[in-house]
């Protein structure tokens, strides 16, 4: 591996930018392809690189008798939860078991306490302030569960703009109807609003906070693993 490639690869990964290392298995020559530049790789290999970057799956690719290894480096899933509520407490434990990083944001200091969330990446801040320094991206799942439009709405709008891979919002159908009205008034497009999972979570009849957290996590996993529509 080229030393500069290794350096550049680590820079891209630290910045949560998707990229692929393509190795010619015949002579060991390698190159780094950033997602933004992936259209520069010509022909079938270029198509294979783009597929790998979308799916995050690495594999050997054969074209015209030549073998290339495409190693897709896509950022690890990050879950941002708006609301330090009972569901979030359960979600933290499930996220740990699944191996996803999770951040909890809630400006209400009565909710966002270290006692309620021990050893958790917890921030008693308004979402708009927090997200300014911790921007969302396409490899982030947004879960808004405060029930309070003042807190949830901006985070949801930010998540849709950032094209987060999952955007879920707690609330009954009626609550969601009102939310849709507010988002339209805020200038969010109809297809974008369609992306919000609400009522939140897979429909498994979840009732308790722990069960709802399971339903939310299952929906996030589905969004991650089936995002190519397969």
């Amino acid at each position: 591996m080229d030393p500069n490639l290794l350096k550049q690869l680590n820079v891209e990964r630290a910045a949560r930018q998707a990229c692929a290392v393509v190795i010619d298995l015949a002579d060991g020559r390698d190159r780094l392809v950033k997602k933004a530049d992936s259209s520069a790789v010509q022909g079938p290999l270029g198509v294979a690189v783009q597929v790998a970057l979308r799916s995050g799956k690495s594999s050997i690719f054969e074209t015209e008798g030549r073998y290339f290894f495409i190693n897709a480096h896509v950022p690890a899933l990050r879950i941002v939860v708006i609301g330090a509520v009972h569901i979030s407490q359960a979600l933290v434990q499930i996220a740990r078991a699944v191996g996803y990083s999770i951040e909890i944001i809630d400006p209400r200091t009565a909710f966002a306490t270290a006692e309620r969330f021990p050893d958790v990446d917890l921030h008693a801040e308004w979402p708009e302030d927090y997200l300014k320094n911790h921007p969302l991206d396409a490899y982030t799942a947004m879960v808004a569960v405060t029930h309070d439009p003042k807190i949830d709405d901006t985070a949801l709008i930010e998540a849709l703009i950032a094209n987060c891979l999952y955007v879920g919002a707690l609330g009954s159908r009626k609550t969601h109807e009102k939310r849709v009205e507010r988002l339209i008034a805020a200038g969010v497009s109809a297809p974008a609003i369609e992306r919000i999972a609400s009522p939140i979570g897979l429909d498994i009849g979840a009732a308790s906070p722990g069960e709802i957290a399971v339903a939310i996590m299952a929906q996030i996993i589905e969004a991650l693993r089936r995002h190519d529509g397969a």
Partner: protein
Amino acid sequence: MDMLDPLIYAEKWMLEGKEVVIATVIKTWGSAPRPVGSHLAICEDGTFEGSVSGGCVEGAVIEEASEVMKSGQPKTLEFGVADETAWRVGLSCGGRIEIYLERVG
């Protein structure tokens, strides 16, 4: 970023002026313990980070790495349970894996 990240270690060792080999799982058949793309970084002083299996073949990979470190020639290794002709070390899970070794620099 995860401090157990083998590629971070590989860069660190490289910047310290040490020889480094990166091993990568490039193909798997059946049940394999680590997915394609997983890395094991090996330093000339014998230190290593990451994994290419559940620990079953790391020893053999590290041994092979010293040769790649000297020659600079990349090499592909294959490990499987029933494959007597390839390597003595097998995968207890019944899978087969192909591992690509390359020197940094």
